[in-house]
Each structure stands twice: as C-alpha cells, then as structure tokens.
C-alpha cells in the first residue's frame, strides 16, 4: 500500500453478502461512499463441470447442464442437446421442436421474473420479489406437470424431449398466459415507472454499444445498449423463424441508451414477447413424435462443433470436441454471465456503493454459470 492508497478503504463485498447474487466476491476500493475500483473474485462455486463432461457419456451430461444456470435449466438443456444433435446429425421431430420452444420461453419468463424480483429487492423494495416468485410458481407447476421436477428439469434431451406433455398442460399454460399480462402491468405500476426506481437507475452504468461488443456482452444487456442482436432472429434455431415476435432494444426511455433502467426494462419487454411466443406455439402444436430415434449409446463421429443459443442471460455456447468415443473429449462452455460480469469493474468506477448493487442487479449475473 502506497501513501496515495491510504485515503482509500478496501471493503470485501461477498462472498457472503445479501446482494451479490450467490457467492460473488467483490473487492471494493472506496473513498467514503464513492467507489474507486472493483475487482471481482470468482470460483467459490466451481464444480469442474467441464471436466465432469469428459468422464460421463453424452446423455449423462444433460442433468449437469441443469446446474449451469439453474434459473433457466431448460435453456441450458436445449443448448447442450442442440450441440450433440449437430454432431450426430439428428433431425428433431417437429412436435419436439415446438415443445422445446414452449419450455425455453416459459423458462425465459421464469428466469426474468427472478431477475426482476431480485433486482427489486436489491433496490430495497422487497414486495415485487415475492410477486415475481408468485408468478414463477405457476411456471414451476407447469414444468412439474410436464417433467416432474420444479428446478432442475432435465427435460430437453438429445433428440427431443424426455416425454410428451400430459393432458391439461396446454390448458394450464393458456390460463397462465391469460393471467400474466395483468401482472406485468402491476409490476410496471409498482416498480418500473416508480420515480424513485427510475432515479436510482436512469443514466447509471451506461454501456455503450462499442463497450458491449468489446466485452462480449450478450442477451438483454446487449440489446439494452441499442443493438438488435437476438440469436433467435439472427441464427434461427428450432422453429423460431416461423414465429412472430419482436426483439426489444433499449431506447433510453428514461435516460441514456444502455443504462441500468434500460437493462431492467428489457427483461419486462422480453417476458411479454416470450408469452406471445408461447401462445403461438400452443396453436402450432400438432400430434407427432416427441423425440427422434436415438440409440442408447451415443458415439458421435470425431469432430468439433460450436452451438449457441439465446439464453435469458445471453448467448450460451457449447464447444464440443468428440474423439469418436462415447464420452466428450472436451466440452467448453461459453457462459453469458461470465462475459457480462467482466464489464462490472469498468462500470463501477466513480459510482456509489448503492450503484454497484444496481449494476450487479441489472446485469443479472448468475454464479453457477460463471464458476461452472
């Protein structure tokens, strides 16, 4: 420590801190309330998932992808399943594709509900958090009907989905979709357009489009900066090219484009769009196979493949190298939160402690995915 550093105080925020979203540790250098630097330390939740992938077979790794981003297990399952399918050249039946889209979009809604809720509780309003949880329960119930689990679904498998949806699922989903828009309106009244909330977030931690590209930011955080980039549109997978939905982008409604409020609001808009997608998919659902014929022992040809999908938190990519055996030779996971986290030290310079919480919350990072 030099003489100049003595005017600063170093504070350890995390790994046990109420709003670091898990076990993120931030070494914060402050001058009173104003931060002069933030250094994230990660790895408290490291489970060596990439290494585990090398010792389990291809189908066996699917449950582990549940544990990547546990708030969006379906999307992680989906990305992994698509990776292996691409390697094996499996054609997924249409019904399975539609079911996958339904599940992925429902999970996007539930993930964004948690993002919305935990962000609001970071901002000091606890009630929206519980409202978000309440709506998420509906989706959890739907998933429970479909696959039997409420958090780690392991539903989307290589070749299709694990089982067909039971009767009553479609009706219940429609019920949820009818119920949901009123709740979004309630969230907006309660939180989104609240003057205090806007004042806390507008013009805070503005990410310019250039910065967003430089740091590899993806997902709602990238779109909040005004860049219309959604893999569901740019590289349509499954049946997304048949569906009619908008890609919301940040317009700087309350301040500069790409500020924390824009990032927050992207998630509200995306929930609306996802609900729209699910509704269309329910109409498209026609009888058919729920899974392609996949042999029990998968032996993909030697080769490598990279597949990415639009997760609630951004672009989740799996880079898979196969040596022709039953187990992956190497599996690299490109976690969106990891890239999104990397910009936090840049954003959190010269802001206040309360703003740092707003920045972390608005990036909506999730630690299991970062640490893997």
């Amino acid at each position: 420590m030099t003489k100049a550093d003595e005017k600063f105080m170093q504070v350890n925020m995390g790994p046990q801190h109420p709003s670091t979203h898990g076990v993120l540790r931030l070494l914060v250098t402050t001058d009173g309330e104003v931060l002069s630097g933030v250094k994230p330390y990660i790895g408290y939740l490291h489970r060596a998932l990439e290494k585990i992938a090398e010792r389990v077979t291809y189908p066996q790794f699917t449950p582990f992808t549940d544990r990547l981003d546990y708030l969006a297990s379906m999307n992680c399952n989906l990305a992994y399943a698509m990776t292996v399918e691409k390697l094996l050249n499996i054609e997924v039946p249409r019904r399975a594709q539609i079911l996958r889209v339904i599940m992925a979009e429902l999970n996007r809604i539930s993930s964004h509900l948690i993002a919305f809720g935990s962000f609001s509780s970071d901002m000091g309003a606890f009630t929206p958090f519980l409202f978000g949880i309440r709506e998420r329960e509906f989706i959890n119930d739907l998933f429970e009907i479909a696959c039997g689990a409420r958090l780690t679904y392991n539903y989307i498998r290589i070749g299709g989905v694990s089982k067909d949806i039971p009767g009553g699922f479609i009706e219940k989903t429609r019920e949820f979709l009818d119920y949901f828009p009123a709740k979004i309106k309630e969230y907006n009244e309660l939180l989104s357009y609240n003057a205090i909330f806007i004042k806390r977030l507008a013009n805070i931690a503005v990410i310019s489009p250039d910065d967003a590209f430089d740091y590899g930011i993806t997902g709602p955080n990238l779109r909040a900066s005004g860049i219309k980039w959604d893999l569901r549109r740019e590289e349509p997978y499954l049946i997304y090219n048949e569906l009619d939905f908008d890609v919301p982008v940040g317009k700087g409604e309350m301040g500069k484009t790409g500020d924390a409020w824009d990032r927050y609001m992207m998630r509200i808009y995306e929930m609306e769009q996802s609900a729209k997608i699910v509704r269309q998919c329910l109409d498209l659902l026609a009888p058919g196979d729920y899974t392609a014929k996949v042999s029990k022992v998968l032996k993909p040809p030697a080769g490598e493949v990279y597949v990415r999908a639009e997760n609630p938190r951004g672009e989740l990519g799996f880079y898979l190298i196969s040596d022709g055996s039953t187990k992956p030779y190497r599996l690299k996971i490109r976690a969106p939160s990891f890239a999104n986290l990397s910009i936090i030290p840049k954003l959190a310079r010269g802001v206040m402690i309360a703003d740092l919480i707003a920045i972390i919350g608005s990036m909506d990072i999730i630690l299991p995915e970062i640490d893997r």
Partner: protein
Amino acid sequence: MAGYFKKMYHSISTVLTGLGVTIKYGINPKTEVTQQYPEVKREPPDGFRGKLFVDINICTGCTACARICPVDAITLKTVRDENKKLRPVLFDIDNARCIYCGLCVEACPVDNCLYFEKKYEFSAYSKQDLISHFGLGEVKPAESKTEDKKTEAEKEGKEAAQ
C-alpha cells in the same frame, strides 16, 4: 422552476400508484397464495420425480440404471440364482447423491420396476439413513459366482460397442 414542480408531481403520482397496488393486497386477505405446509400438503402431479423406488422382485439385475446414473448414486450387486437368473442381492440408492434426473427410470427395461414415488418428504438425521436399501440380501446361489457392478458395466459396454 416548472421542471421542479413537474418532477415533484411525477414522483408523488408514481409513488401513489405504487401504494395503490400494494394496498389492494393489504386490505384484501383473499389475495394470499401461501399454502400452510404441514397442514396442507401439495399433491404432486403424475410423473413427479420424488423418491426412487425399486420393485426388487421383478428386477432383472441388468444394472442399466447403475450405469446410466451420472452421479453414481446406485450401487448394485448381482448374483445368479438357482435358475441361473441374475438377481440383485444389493441394490442401494443413495438419496443424498441422487439428483432426481430420471435417467435411470428411463433406462430400466422392465416396466414398473424402477420408478419415482410421489414421496418428497424423507429427511433424516444422518447421511447413512438416506440410503435406501432394496437388495434381496441373500439369494440361494446356484454357483457362487458374483459379479459386481463394475465388471458387469464393462461387459455391457463392450457388447454395446460391438
């Protein structure tokens, strides 16, 4: 100056809107969604992935479940009985290790042999108590030929590879 009052009006009106949302819940007790857990128990839907159960009498001891399990929660030991059929003498499922992914249930070739119960309350005081033992214990062996899980798994793997 006009901006000053406009800002003030905006703040007050949005705060009042928010208060209007919460008071609707505050004065209406019917909005509560809590289930009083020990008194009211949720009935899980069909296909719920609860505790694993094995109908050991129809188990063929094929060890497909033990091989597919990603977390090695199933320990199987089989013995050939007098009819030269494979019987599981040891069939332990460690519920503390199990991640309830359902791969074993799908791998099981026998209908209604290995399946999920709807049971979701099985806390225990020690990790040992969380292991469910389904094994037959002793089987009248024709020949004392035991095959443990690992060798069986390797054999099966080889067969599949061919």
